[in-house]
């Protein structure tokens, strides 16, 4: 197993989702897995580039893959959207040499193939339950969370090859090692409508209300997520949802790496707990 990865933070982690970046680095630091940030990575284009011009989407990711290639490392990606785009591109370019030549020319890139694109959850899981348990210094007993996967990590399963698309369990298995309880619930693979967040806010509010409502009714005190788009949607839109539907959730939306980091002895500041819109401090003062 490679213990040093070409790290692709992506735009969200350098922008509105800094705490994901901070907490991933904290956790990987505790486990001794090196994240070597790619120099001059560019935006992967996310859903819009793909929706408007598929070649452009391939070219943007090809450029990033080419950087990893020159580093002779596999790629570690925290953002579910970037992971999905980059893995899609790697698969297409690895399987089709003619396409690879065309896209390389378009992107001024030199991707020769064979780079593995891994989501940070997969890397964490591969580090092994034993290594994770050993690094846990503070058990989060009494904390009940719902693990939420959303779309982009799981689907399409033929591309992402991430986990069982109908009943993924990787996050639950990691969360349990921290001593927290992962509740059984119904909405862990549902879409939160992230792409519609700006243009069609009404759709997002309904989907977010369905997700939070189900988590709450199954006893969750917080949601644990692995996607910056989901996190922002569920966190930032929560107050609007509460107002529109006359409900109260006050449900913190944590990155899995924040909860794992805290269990491994990182401070709340180190995992950027104060950056969440819905405060999570009360949750952890209870278990501290």
């Amino acid at each position, binding site marked *: 197993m490679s213990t040093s990865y070409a790290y692709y933070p992506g735009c969200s982690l*350098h922008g509105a989702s800094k705490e994901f970046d901070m907490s991933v680095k904290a956790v990987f630091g505790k486990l001794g897995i090196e994240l070597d940030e790619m120099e001059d990575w560019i*935006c992967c284009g996310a859903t819009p580039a793909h929706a408007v011009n598929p070649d452009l989407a391939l070219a943007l990711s090809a450029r990033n893959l080419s950087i990893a290639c020159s580093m002779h490392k596999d790629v570690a990606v925290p953002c579910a959207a970037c992971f999905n785009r980059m893995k899609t591109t790697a698969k297409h370019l690895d399987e089709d040499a003619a396409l690879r030549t065309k896209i390389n020319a378009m992107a001024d890139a030199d991707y020769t193939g064979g780079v593995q694109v891994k989501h940070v959850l997969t890397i964490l899981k591969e580090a092994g339950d034993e290594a994770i348990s050993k690094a846990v210094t503070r058990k989060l007993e009494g904390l009940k969370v719902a693990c939420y996967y959303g779309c982009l990590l799981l689907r399409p399963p033929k591309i992402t090859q991430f986990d069982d698309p109908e009943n993924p369990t990787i996050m639950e298995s990691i969360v349990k090692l921290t001593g927290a309880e992962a509740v059984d619930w119904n909405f862990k693979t549902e*879409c939160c409508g992230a792409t519609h967040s700006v243009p069609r806010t009404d759709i997002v509010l309904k989907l977010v209300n369905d997700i939070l409502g189900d988590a709450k009714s199954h006893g969750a005190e917080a949601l644990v997520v692995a996607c910056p788009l989901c996190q922002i949607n569920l966190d930032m839109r929560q107050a609007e949802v509460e107002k529109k539907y006359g409900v109260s959730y006050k449900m913190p939306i944590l990155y899995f790496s924040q909860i794992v980091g805290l269990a491994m002895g990182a401070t709340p500041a180190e995992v950027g707990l104060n950056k969440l819109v819905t405060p999570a401090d009360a949750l952890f003062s209870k278990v501290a």
Partner: protein
Amino acid sequence: MKIEDTDRNTEFIKEIESLSGEKIAMCYQCGKCSAGCPIAYEMNELPDKIMRLAQLGMKEELLSSTTPWLCASCEMCSTRCPQEVEIPRVMEAIRAISVREGRQRTGKDVNIFYDTFINNIKTFGRSFEPMMVARFNLSSRKLFKDMKNGMKLFTKGKIGLLPDKPKGMDQIRKIYDRANAEEK
């Protein structure tokens, strides 16, 4: 409505198939896609009906439907489809044809959002959220939309005032120009 076989716009079917890479006839109308679609509640035509309309080559009905613009590309339908039809690719194809024929009124805001996002990364190489939302609001004439949420993120130190640009912006712009030239 009575549909004669001669009403089938076979050119249009071929166009959808070539843009989406999907074989439209594969769909056997089981309805599983619609059963799991999270946006179904908002759609006037459900995903299985879009597939049926496509099989029948009913261009007018498809281009005036809001469904392709509401699809969030969440891939729930395609993950479950027993015939492995990539329904979101079909939705994309219909959107692309609407745009080309100047018919995108039905999904105007979604379209403006996509364009705004892409221009944003073309300018900065990386996505700079405040500028993107501001430009979206300008183009869609919703000037103060999401101002409050933006302030929330700003006060949390989550968004800055200046974009974070990679080196080699000239080259990045070249990628866009080449990809656009290919499109035409």
